[in-house]
């Protein structure tokens, strides 16, 4: 047993090396399979239930939506809809569908399918439903004829086209046939009813998902991939090594250290681009010691911003609630920066002028950057004689903690990803009091902010809208409900034989396979 095992190991090693040299190349010529390394599983394929970027990746490649998104800055591009018109008051959108569009079973993607999909999304009220909730209702979508869809918005919503790439169209016939008692949720969880360029070939939950090109897909053109694999790789160091060794073509969750280590290596291209993904630390304005605005300001002034930036690597500090590239950003906004003297002045004005208190911060367990920032915060607060209790929590527990001010931790770390490049996306979700109890804005409420945001949402005059957002940012800075953190750059590493990749700063880790080729 001993000898066979040992020999076997050596044979295996040799076989692997040989396989890398010849076998894989030969195979790669007939089958061009792109491997993506990611740490997120795809637990659900239901386009109206699933969330997370891994699901977005799977769904945007297996389903289609009315419009897609491309370019930098991102622009809506035709997908199922060949063209569209918008009424003058901005409340009525008319889409002309591509007559060639068909589902995987051969049936056409028609206006009825669009209507069915929107209504199912709203009915289930999960997944991406929040993006259109309150904007579109069950009566909004109308099938004028087979290839014409009219959508009447309940309220004017300027960024409507920006959310459409994330509303996927299902095949009503297939869903109805497998409807069950839960609107087809059980069936769609692991089955596809889409029209996208790819379909699922192999699913090993928690390990990998293999997609293959649909032979007679309706969308013509695109890259030469015959398939792709979404490989769940929990360690970022492993993801990096897979790209380095050519075992994966794209890695999507790399740290700045990983990027540095890959820099200059032959055969590897790095994508380091700003994206609309903000990180901030929300302070509990309704319960506990941080109800005191002076204490919040003191903490905002004591925080070690440079340290935060250093451990983040490829990132830039936020200068308020908006990224600089978003229309409406106030470039003259006075922001808090590390200034211990000022921090102590604010502290002296607060109800605990000498510190001596203990506050808690919650972050998502397993998120390395958040762990580091929590430790930077702990060190910063020592200067104010404030003790910090760091609580790593699983995401669902954080979400339920945010439901009431009493259970919300004193400081609450969140990433917010803008799915569309409009100030409303970040501002409304993050600061309007109607979102209190949700993870994006657990506690902060200010009537003035509410009215500014509601007005801005409906304001179609760009100049007036900008002025409203500037006013909002000033009020917010005075209240200091957040420690505005960083805008992390999107960090992707890919083999240089990946062709056709064009960076778009929305959900770029949910790789769009259609245009990609392997050279």
């Amino acid at each position, binding site marked *: 047993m001993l000898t066979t095992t040992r020999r076997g190991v050596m044979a295996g090693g040799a076989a692997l090396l040989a396989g890398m040299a010849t076998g894989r190349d030969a195979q790669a010529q007939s089958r061009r399979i792109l491997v993506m390394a990611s740490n997120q599983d795809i637990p659900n394929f239901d386009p109206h239930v699933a969330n997370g970027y891994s699901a977005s990746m799977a769904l945007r490649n297996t389903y289609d939506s009315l419009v897609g998104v491309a370019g930098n800055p991102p622009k809506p591009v035709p997908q199922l809809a060949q063209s569209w018109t918008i009424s003058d008051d901005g409340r009525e959108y008319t889409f002309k569908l591509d007559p060639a569009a068909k589902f995987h079973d051969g049936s056409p993607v028609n206006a009825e399918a669009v209507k069915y999909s929107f209504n199912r999304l709203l009915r289930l009220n999960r997944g991406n439903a929040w993006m259109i909730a309150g904007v579109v209702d069950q009566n909004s979508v109308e099938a004028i004829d087979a290839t014409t869809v009219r959508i009447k918005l309940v309220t004017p919503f300027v960024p409507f086209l920006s959310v459409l790439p994330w509303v996927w169209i299902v095949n009503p016939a297939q869903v109805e046939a497998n409807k069950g008692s839960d609107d087809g949720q059980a069936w769609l969880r692991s089955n596809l009813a889409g029209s996208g360029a790819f379909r699922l070939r192999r699913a090993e939950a928690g390990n990998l998902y293999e997609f293959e090109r649909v032979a007679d897909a309706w969308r013509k053109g695109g890259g030469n991939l015959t398939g792709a694999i979404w490989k769940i790789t929990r*360690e970022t*160091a492993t993801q990096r*090594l897979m790209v380095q060794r050519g075992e994966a073509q794209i890695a999507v969750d790399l740290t700045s*250290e990983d990027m540095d280590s890959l820099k200059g290596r032959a055969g590897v291209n790095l994508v380091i681009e700003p994206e609309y993904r903000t990180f901030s630390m929300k302070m509990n304005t309704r319960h506990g010691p941080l109800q005191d605005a002076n204490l919040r300001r003191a903490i905002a002034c004591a925080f070690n911003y440079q340290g935060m930036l*250093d451990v983040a690597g490829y990132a830039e500090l936020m200068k308020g609630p908006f990224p600089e590239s978003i229309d409406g950003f106030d470039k003259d906004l006075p922001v808090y920066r590390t200034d211990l003297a000022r921090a102590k002045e604010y502290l002296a004005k607060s109800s605990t002028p000498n510190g001596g208190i203990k506050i808690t911060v919650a972050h998502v367990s397993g998120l390395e950057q958040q762990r580091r920032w929590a*430790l*930077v915060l702990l060190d910063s607060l020592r200067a104010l004689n404030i003790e910090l*209790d*760091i609580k790593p929590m699983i995401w669902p527990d954080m979400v339920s903690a945010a439901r009431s001010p009493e259970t919300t931790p004193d400081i609450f770390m969140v990433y917010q990803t803008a799915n569309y490049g409009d100030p409303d996306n970040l501002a409304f979700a993050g600061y309007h009091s109607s979102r209190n109890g949700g993870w994006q804005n657990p506690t902060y409420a200010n009537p003035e902010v509410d009215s500014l945001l509601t007005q801005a949402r409906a304001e179609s005059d760009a100049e007036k809208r900008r002025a409203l957002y500037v006013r909002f940012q000033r009020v917010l800075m005075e209240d200091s409900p957040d420690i505005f953190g960083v805008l992390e750059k999107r960090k992707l590493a890919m083999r240089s034989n990946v062709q056709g990749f064009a960076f778009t700063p929305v959900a770029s880790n949910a790789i769009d396979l259609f245009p990609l080729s392997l050279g």
Partner: protein
Amino acid sequence: MSSTTAHPRLESWRRGLYRFRQSWVSVLGLLIVSVLLVLAIGGQHLAPYPQHIAGLVDTSARLQAPSTTYWFGTNELGQDVFSLVVAGTRISLLAGMAVVIVGAAFGVFVGAIAGFLGGWVDEVLMRLADLKLTVPGLILAMAVAAALGPGIVNMVFAIALSWWPGYARLVRGEVMAKREETFVLASRAMGAGTNRLLWKHILPNIMSPIIVKMSLDMGFAILTVASLGFIGIGVKPPTPEWGSLLSVARVNMPDYWWTAIFPGLAIFMAVFGFNLLGDGLRDLLDPKARR
């Protein structure tokens, strides 16, 4: 005890001590454990950067390779890895000791009850102990620790939950055997209570195997504590526990290997030291078990 019984016991101690000294591995074990104890007691003062243990971050000196300034290099926050590893000694040793003591105390309690009462109580308790053997202890400890949230006390509780059956068996067997022995019968005839019997006659007699088992278990307890830390459900940050240090350092491999290798080596040395010492102690205190 009279001097006539004390003499042979002393003699056997002396013989055991000789054997202990003869075996250089046991001496090595003692040496390692002594160093660990010194580090555990004086850690804060022996560490070159005590501020880093308290949570100071120095982001201008991140991920520096081992040098004369930073013996084990620095981590992703610019903290001195050597200081953190030194500070981790106390946590690992304390947690390991707590697990073993809680486990042993509970086990002795259960074992004594089962042994003295016998009957259905014995049956139920021992079946429960059997059941514990079939449960994958680590997974259970992981589940309990994860649900209770991070913290040393929670972790110790989660691990100790599946630590008692070994001791319970040991004590129960001994109680069963000793219960019938003449001197116990004699003292019972003289009216000694159960409590007194346990403390006066039974426990002193089985102290040696219990101590041997505890010292052998110590290494394994430290290992289990580190395992939980490694999975990411151990102590609260910034407590520098070895397993957690190793766990967060995985993202730094292979370029910044020192952030992972040194905490890992520390776990190994601690477990190794206690295992060697435990082996030696078994030779010393429990010659019957020696082969």
